[in-house]
């Protein structure tokens, strides 16, 4: 399987995982947004949530969004109004990332072998810039809800 074909399959798996999490636990419908590749690597203000993946393939899964989006998603997840980003919001975003990357892992294991996940790490601040090392398999998608957008990316390389 070529890397290009594999990356397309990973995109499908990532979107399906996000769709399942958002529809079941946040009662929200999502759709694919415009490709965020041109924004990739640029600094932004907001939240970066990471879950590590390890096994025969190693890498990470990321969720990127703005602060207001993080508060909105946490509000829906917890069914409690969250007006600003604090520990509860960051924890909720970490868990949302954990579930999405967990579903992606389950979808990839048939082809890539067993993998384990780290616990989530969530960063919140200004001028965040994520620099990712080279990876053999990667997927970057943007998902939008009614008035919010997130970016999801998976980067994997053979161990």
């Amino acid at each position, binding site marked *: 399987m070529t890397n290009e074909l594999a990356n397309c399959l990973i995109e499908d798996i990532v979107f399906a995982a996000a769709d*399942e*999490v958002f529809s*079941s*636990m946040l009662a929200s419908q999502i759709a694919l947004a415009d490709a965020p590749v041109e924004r990739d690597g640029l600094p932004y203000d907001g939240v970066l949530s990471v879950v590590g993946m390890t096994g025969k393939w190693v890498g990470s899964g990321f969720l990127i969004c703005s602060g207001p989006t993080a508060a909105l998603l*946490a509000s829906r*997840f*917890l*069914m409690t109004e969250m007006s600003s980003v604090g*520990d*509860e919001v960051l*924890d*909720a975003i*970490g*868990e949302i990332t*954990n*579930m999405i*990357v*967990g*579903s992606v*892992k*389950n979808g990839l*294991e048939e082809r890539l072998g*067993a993998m*384990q*996940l780290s*616990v989530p790490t969530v960063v919140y601040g200004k001028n965040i810039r994520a620099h990712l090392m080279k990876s053999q398999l990667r997927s970057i998608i943007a998902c939008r809800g009614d008035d919010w957008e997130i970016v999801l990316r998976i980067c994997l390389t053979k161990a």
Partner: protein
Amino acid sequence: MESIDLLIVDDSAAIRKILQRVLLQTELPLGTVFEAADGSQGLDLLKQHRVDAILSDINMPNMDGVEFLKSVREIPEYRSTPFIMITTEGSQARVKEVADLGATSYVRKPFTTDQLRDKLTSLLKS
């Protein structure tokens, strides 16, 4: 029916909050619902309080859910206590592993409130 005391073990405060909410929706006669952020804290709690059922994640720091399950099943009074894994882990191998170690049931995250409520009601009522 006597009240049911439970222990929720998950490193995510968000999930612990959601599980508390779902448990209230089961209309089971809930007593005290204890919380722990990892298996080690869970074991400490079990030394001080008797519970009737345990809900646990797998992927946690300090002591993960598999080690926690093994330790719980070594405690005589908890050999057959309902132990429900609630986790993102979805491989058949992992499901079988925890079942062989004595987990009563397995719920995969993500879940809908209805799915989890119905499952917990069915397991805990019996």
